[in-house]
């Protein structure tokens, strides 16, 4: 047991500057909260979390990941927000046989043929929330939907996922550049498209600006706005406020979910940071819980990769989402819920959970994954 004093090192590489910074900050805060509640330990060993900023740039992400696994010799990597950064930083991470626990990005590339024994998603597969949203829009009887998503891997996954479950007509499809902030062009094309609903996947500052401009242009009167949880979470609500009321969005988590792990998480998060957690914070928290369980169940022998992998695959932790298990491709099988933005009993504008849309939902790529043993 002389080993127990050795700290467990985690490289938390996330987007901490620019329009996506709110997402990275919440992942970081959620992750660090879980570590703190475990007595600054992971699996009973002291925890050392090295925080770095990828600036939402694939180049910076790849270089920093390289540094974290080679120089700092971290045992686990986590934290990346954007899928383009994830795909760039993945290569050096997997090459060094470091386990990556995703607290957000879930690119389809890692779910299908390129699935990797060292990659685990504690969040979702990119298409999933959009699949649930497509189902909701379909169920509500909308016939002409305009789609807007950024031109990067997760944006393409989003539209693929939405169209897998939405069977109506697509009025228009726009793919603005990632981190574009002025949507004059997209809004002027929405007007003549005669869409009855608009589906946006615009994470972070993009969504904040789009919704503000959408309302300012007077389009919210004729078109119903739908989004994945990313476009209707606390970070967007805090910036936009009342115009968000009534917006439907889908997520694998909601802050009012009724389970013990979640109640504790939300209460502790509010106490620590003075704000409601977002789904990013919930994912960061669960990523830390998963690492905690893996270190514990592999008896702290982190050099035994097979044992750690087995412990990760077993995922013996109390997820804030309730039921959580891994599929063969290391992506979660979980429920996806509908949320609506309303005023809560304290008068705050926030999400309320409406119920499950997709039960025990797996991603569409798992069958193409031949996970190396």
């Amino acid at each position, binding site marked *: 047991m002389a080993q127990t004093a050795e700290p467990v090192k985690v490289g938390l590489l996330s987007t*901490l*500057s*620019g*329009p996506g*910074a*709110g997402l990275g*900050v919440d992942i970081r805060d959620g992750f660090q909260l879980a570590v703190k509640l475990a007595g600054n330990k992971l699996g009973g060993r002291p925890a050392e979390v090295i925080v770095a*900023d990828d600036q939402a740039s694939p180049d910076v992400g790849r270089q920093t990941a390289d540094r974290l696994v080679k120089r700092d010799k971290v045992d686990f990597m986590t934290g990346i927000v954007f899928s383009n950064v994830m795909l760039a930083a993945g290569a050096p991470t997997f090459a060094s046989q470091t386990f990556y626990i995703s607290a957000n990005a879930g690119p389809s590339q890692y779910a299908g043929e390129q699935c990797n024994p060292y990659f685990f998603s504690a969040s979702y597969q990119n298409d999933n929330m959009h699949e649930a949203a497509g189902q909701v829009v379909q169920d509500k009887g909308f016939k002409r939907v305009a789609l807007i998503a950024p*031109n990067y891997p997760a944006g393409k996954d989003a539209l693929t996922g939405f169209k897998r479950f939405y069977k109506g007509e697509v009025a228009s*499809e*726009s*793919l*603005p*550049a990632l981190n574009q*902030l*002025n949507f*004059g*062009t997209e809004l*002027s*094309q929405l*007007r*003549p498209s005669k869409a009855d609903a608009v589906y946006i996947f615009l994470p972070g*500052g993009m969504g*904040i*600006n789009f919704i*503000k*401009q959408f*309302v*300012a*242009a*007077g*389009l919210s009167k004729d078109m119903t706005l739908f989004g994945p949880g990313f476009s209707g979470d606390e970070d967007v609500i*805090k*910036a936009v406020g009342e115009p968000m009321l009534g917006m439907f969005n889908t997520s694998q988590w909601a802050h009012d979910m009724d389970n013990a792990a979640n109640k504790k998480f939300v209460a502790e998060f509010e106490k620590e940071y003075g704000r409601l957690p977002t789904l990013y914070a919930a994912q960061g928290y669960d990523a830390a819980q998963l690492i905690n369980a893996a270190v514990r169940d592999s008896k702290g022998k982190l050099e035994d990769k097979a044992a750690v992998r087995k412990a990760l695959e077993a995922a013996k932790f109390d997820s804030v989402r309730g039921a959580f298990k891994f599929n063969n491709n290391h992506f979660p099988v979980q429920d996806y819920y509908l949320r609506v933005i309303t005023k809560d009993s304290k008068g705050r504008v926030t999400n309320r959970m409406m119920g499950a849309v997709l039960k025990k939902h797996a991603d569409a790529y798992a069958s193409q994954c031949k996970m190396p043993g």
Partner: protein
Amino acid sequence: MNSILLLEQAFNGLQFGLMLFLLAAGLTLVFGIMDMINLAHGSLYMVGAYLIAAITAATGSYWWGLAGGVLGAGVFGAVLELSILRHFYQRDHLSQVLGTFAILLMCNEGVRLIWGAQPVPLNTPDMLAGPVEVLPGFFYSSFSLFIIGVGLLVALLMYVLITRTRLGMQVRAGAANREMAMAMGVNVSALFTAIFALGAALCGVAGGMLGPVLAVQVGMGESILIVAFVVIVIGGIGSIRGAFLGALLVGVIDTAGRTFMPLLFSRLMSPEAAANAAPAVASILIYLLMATVLFFKPRGLFPTHG
């Protein structure tokens, strides 16, 4: 329906063009009269926007924020000129580029130290948050209309200042022939400080207009700086009239390109290919415009130097 799309694009282009003019006006004067390349010009816009956001948050009023931030940006510009930049006037362009690039980096780091790496919130004032029905069936954001109004007002004030006042006369003289203006008794060093403060205040106005529409964040000045340089090169360095027309030209062409290129490309190729090709082509249009103008008029549309 199509006429509404065209009208909306015209408004968007006008809005973008007028904001570019606010940024380019100071840049072109500094470049034209002092023969000084200032890469930190975009930082003045960033500092202005941050001050406006901070004062708005503190007072709860966007208007106080705007007034304070524009004033603050002007003071910041004057201090920068008095303390550092005036020592660069006699140096070559390479030293100026290096020196002002260092200032740009320091401004970015300074802002990051004070306000953090995350964007700071700055919202449109409530009275301008909704749409206005410009024509039957055509709604347009009232804040965007406000931006257009402010831009036109500033352009008019600049016109009066440059053509009808003593200061403007000195500015024009300085732009046309600096040595001669100095020989005729123009107090050049005071004039330079005044121009710099004015240019910085205009950047602050642009920061207050664009901040709520885009985002107040570190590095917001860089992308806009390049476009501002394109504008003054097209318009002719040192010319306010050139900056105005160049800015409108660039604003309208850039906006139209971003809207109509995707429509055009999606007719020609698959949506996937169009989504990748159209923005790429749209983003180089203004540089093609610059190359075309320089081919026919190597000194820009309105050259000032005799």
